[in-house]
């Protein structure tokens, strides 16, 4: 279990102090694939570097299985880092070493015998699906292949935690998918806890079970991926979940028009023509002003902004009708 307690990190710059992290408290359970998402400059990279003390937090604690990372000696910290390995956006392979030697590198650091390290490295190259690249140099590989080698390298010391710092941000969508599949596989088969830092909601959607949203160095929302997706509360979360805009008024509101927002909370409603049925059964014509929905695991998440022309009675009818549908929340939008 990883516990971050009131983490604060302040950088001293020439323009004064910059608070990269403010009082961040999070708990990551064993076996989680935990997403930390935020826009550029939200403090994600600083946060992940505080976990393995590449950045010393100004205040607060990092506890890994109860061990206070900040209280370790240099030597103890180096040993501990073999349990919490990391992959990066830029892969960061040693360019003058073959792939096999790259995977051997952390074992070499740990003082493992060359022959044993080589054997273990070959096994890992099998796991990531690139045994034929053992003697190739990183420059000869594609980005996706380089990240696979980096993953093999990160797994070499049999870590308990894998930190992924924007690990797929430099890759195309198809390669991203295959790398995420690999990470998911590793999480399942080896039981490694994974922390994923990203600015892409799609990455969180694809592999994470829990997510924290970081904005301006503060955790603004935290919960299961489903919770956050269905009802993002903070502005930062709304921006990330619905980058096209949450309820941007597209058309100016008419005098006799009411507006309501329907929120799909994992409803099966996606398959039914909800608005059309309302028109037929209740003879209420709704104008769809804005809609932003996502289907996750066959269920609809998101929201829709409707405009209803008519009197107050019509509005109440519409709200009553829509509220009866399971997992749909309806609210009137005042202005």
């Amino acid at each position, binding site marked *: 279990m990883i516990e971050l307690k009131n983490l604060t990190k302040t950088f001293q710059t020439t323009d004064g102090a910059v608070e990269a992290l403010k009082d961040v408290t999070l708990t990551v359970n064993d076996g989680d694939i935990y997403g930390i998402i935020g826009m550029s400059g939200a403090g994600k990279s600083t946060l992940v570097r505080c976990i393995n003390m590449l950045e010393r937090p100004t205040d607060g604690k990092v506890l890994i299985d109860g061990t206070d990372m900040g209280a370790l000696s240099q030597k103890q910290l180096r040993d501990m880092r073999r349990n919490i390995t990391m992959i990066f956006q*830029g892969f960061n392979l040693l360019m003058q070493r073959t792939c096999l030697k790259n995977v051997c590198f952390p074992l070499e650091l740990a003082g493992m015998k060359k022959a044993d390290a080589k054997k273990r490295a070959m096994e890992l190259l099998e796991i990531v699906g690139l045994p034929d690249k053992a003697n190739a140099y990183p420059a000869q590989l594609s980005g996706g292949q380089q990240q696979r080698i980096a993953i093999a390298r990160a797994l070499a010391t049999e870590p308990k935690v894998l930190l992924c710092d924007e690990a797929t941000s430099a890759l195309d969508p198809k390669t991203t998918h295959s790398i995420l599949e690999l990470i998911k596989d590793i999480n399942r088969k080896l039981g490694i806890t994974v922390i994923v830092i990203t600015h892409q909601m799609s990455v969180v959607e694809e592999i994470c079970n829990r997510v924290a949203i970081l904005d301006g160095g503060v955790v603004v929302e935290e919960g299961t991926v489903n919770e956050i997706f269905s009802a993002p509360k903070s502005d930062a979360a709304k921006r990330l979940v619905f980058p096209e805009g949450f309820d941007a008024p597209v058309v100016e509101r008419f005098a006799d028009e009411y507006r309501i927002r329907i929120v799909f909370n994992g409803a099966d409603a996606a398959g039914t023509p909800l608005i059309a049925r309302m028109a037929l059964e209740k003879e209420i014509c709704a104008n769809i002003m804005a809609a932003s929905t996502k289907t996750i695991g066959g269920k609809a998440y998101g929201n829709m902004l409707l405009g209803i022309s008519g009197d107050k009675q019509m509005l109440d009818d519409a709200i009553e009708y829509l509220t009866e549908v399971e997992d749909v929340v309806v609210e009137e939008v005042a202005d």
Partner: protein
Amino acid sequence: MYDKIFTPEAWQQAWEVVQSEFLMGLWETFYVTVVATFFAVVLGLPLGILLVAGDKGGVLPLPKAVLSTLNIVINLLRSVPFLILMIMAFPLARLIVGTTIGTVASIVPLVIAAFPFVARLVESSLREVNPNIIEAAQSMGASPFQIITKVMIPESIPSLISNITIALTTVLGYSAMSGIIGGGGLGKIAINYGYYRYKYLIMLLAVVLLVVLVQIFQSIGTRLATKLDKRLKNR
């Protein structure tokens, strides 16, 4: 000066000197250059590493006073003209090799002139190493010493070779200058015959040989650096 260089008599004389002295001169130049560069690297490499690793934010930060002193000493040595450095190094040469004249004695000022230069070259090579790779090594539990020996140096080998080649050719130029204080080699031949005895053809031939030597050093260095650089694809 140049009109009477290529007379038959001059060629005759030059040929005799070429036969009697050039082979020895070439060997002395080669030997002095390689030995002086070797010692310059022995001294300069650790200093260059210290400059990078000891920097604020380096893998092994040194006290600011130590680093500043190091920088000042290196700059100081780099700014003394070689001709004057040679004279200033006489006592040290006497201390180390027992004499101030001759080929071996000239190695001492050459090393003194070249090692701060090598330290700066090593510094620039090591600074080229991607800091993210160093961070990755730290994240895997590498100690500062391991980062230096297993990451910084191996990753900058191609650049180090290029830069040491530059040092080698520079030392070669300096070694020719050391002919003035009695250092042997092609430089001595050029100065003795050309400057003191107006045999310009001999001087010219010695210079041609120096140029050839620089070309050979440089092309070997460049080829080696490219060959060893695994960042270059399809090699």
